């Protein structure tokens, strides 16, 4: 059953210390910042942080707090605003264990986690890059049993908990994305527990009026955290744009 919790209780109750934590949102859009800030406040150690194919402040902040031991993130940056300062420093100084990965591999690895598939072979193109051979923890070669050819495969990722931001929830705990889903759906399905931060509560009829595939049922949602404005300084589609001034201020401080 879905519980309705404040950020403090959701993080304390559902994010295991040293666990595999997935954090959604792409770039500076729909990052579950109310939950991310609470992770920092409670100083929850993260054994492995798994992000969307492109992540930003939601990862940089946790890395900067020294909470992340191991990172799976194909892109950490701030797009037009620049590189991710704390991520950059942690990698350059060797204070984080970065598992090199790619967008397609990560997405398929979460698909595998969601579907109980042990691993997923990747398109042949991946072998032309240096990514797979630089991370044997995630990528290994396998023989295609149909053709006999070698190909690269990625291991399934199964986060202990996923933290994502959606627009709305109803009182039963059903949630509506109310936005482009990015890869947050498969991240949600792959995780053993799911905490969804929402902008507001709506009647159940409002969720029911949405089209198939744009909502998630309560039975997949461990906890709903109602946090209006909780994506800031990232954008919450339909509610507010990214707060560029706040992001610039973060970057300025982070670069020190």
């Amino acid at each position, binding site marked *: 059953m879905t519980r309705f919790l404040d950020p403090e209780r959701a993080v304390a109750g559902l994010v295991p210390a040293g666990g595999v934590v997935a954090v959604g949102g792409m770039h500076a859009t729909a990052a579950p910042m109310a939950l991310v800030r609470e992770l920092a406040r409670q100083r929850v150690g993260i054994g492995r942080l798994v992000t969307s194919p492109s992540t930003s402040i939601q990862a940089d902040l946790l890395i900067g707090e020294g909470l992340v031991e191991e990172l799976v993130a194909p892109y950490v940056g701030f797009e037009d605003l620049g590189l991710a300062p704390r991520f950059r420093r942690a990698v350059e100084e*060797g204070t984080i264990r970065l598992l090199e990965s790619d967008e397609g591999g990560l*997405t*398929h690895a979460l698909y595998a986690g969601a579907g109980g598939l042990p691993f997923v072979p990747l398109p042949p193109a991946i072998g032309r*890059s*240096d990514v797979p051979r630089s991370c044997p923890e995630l990528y290994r070669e396998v023989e295609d049993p149909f053709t006999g050819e070698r190909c690269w495969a990625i291991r399934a990722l199964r986060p202990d908990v996923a933290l994502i931001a959606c627009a709305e929830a109803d009182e039963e705990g059903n949630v509506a994305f109310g936005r482009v889903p*990015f890869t947050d759906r498969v991240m949600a399905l792959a995780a053993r527990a799911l905490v969804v931060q929402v902008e507001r509560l709506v009647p159940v009829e409002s969720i029911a009026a949405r089209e198939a595939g744009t909502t998630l049922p309560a039975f997949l949602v461990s906890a709903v955290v109602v946090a209006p404005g909780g994506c800031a300084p990232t954008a919450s589609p339909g509610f507010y*744009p990214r707060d560029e001034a706040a992001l610039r201020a973060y970057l300025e401080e982070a670069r020190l």
Partner: protein
Amino acid sequence: MSAPYSPQQLMACVLARAFRDGEVVVMGAVPALPLAACRLAKALHAPSLSYVVGGSGTVNPAPAGLLSQSCDPELRGGPVTLPLHEVVLLEGRGGALDVFCAGGLQIDASGNCNLVGVGDPARPKLRGPGSVGLPFLPAVGRTVIFTLAHNPRTFVERVDFVSGAGDTVALVVTPLATMEPDPGTRRLRLASVHPGVSADEVRARTGFELPVPEPVPETPPPTAAELAVLARLDPAGVLA
């Protein structure tokens, strides 16, 4: 006589001319320039061009201006949005996407792109954002590389890390020139210099040995029609 234009406006025109009608273009982070190019191509010579903006999965968005965030909520303007998961599928599948707009911290003589970092990847001098979707580059029809940084640190003989292989690179566009692969060796060579730029300058600012054709073609400057469309697409002057 041509009107005044900025280097980025010229680059947008060069990119746009490389897109053919009916093709599908996909772009990644910081999409302002390829977004301008796609909309320009669609307005002028490629009405059936389709373009997919980065992580957002939006198809053919036409926001009020040029956006620098690939997941900007303002990108909703397109008629269709594909979940990113499905864009990832199509990138790997091949046959669906014709052009991938890529870039890199380093770009080498073979057109390989590096977004991982400079120096030993295990302990880099400069760590970049990461490889994102570039490893699937060879699965997409052809790659078009653009960068605002034409200097010997960016254009190197061999990247320190191959994020995306240059196998399908068809064109490189910088503020100084365009390059293309030699069909025989697949190494990049100078294709054209932008108006006012000399081949010597381009070679001096390229970190690998750059073959130069004789005579050196000049990149055609933006036409009045191109500049008119760009002015309409980019009221805030992002490319100015």
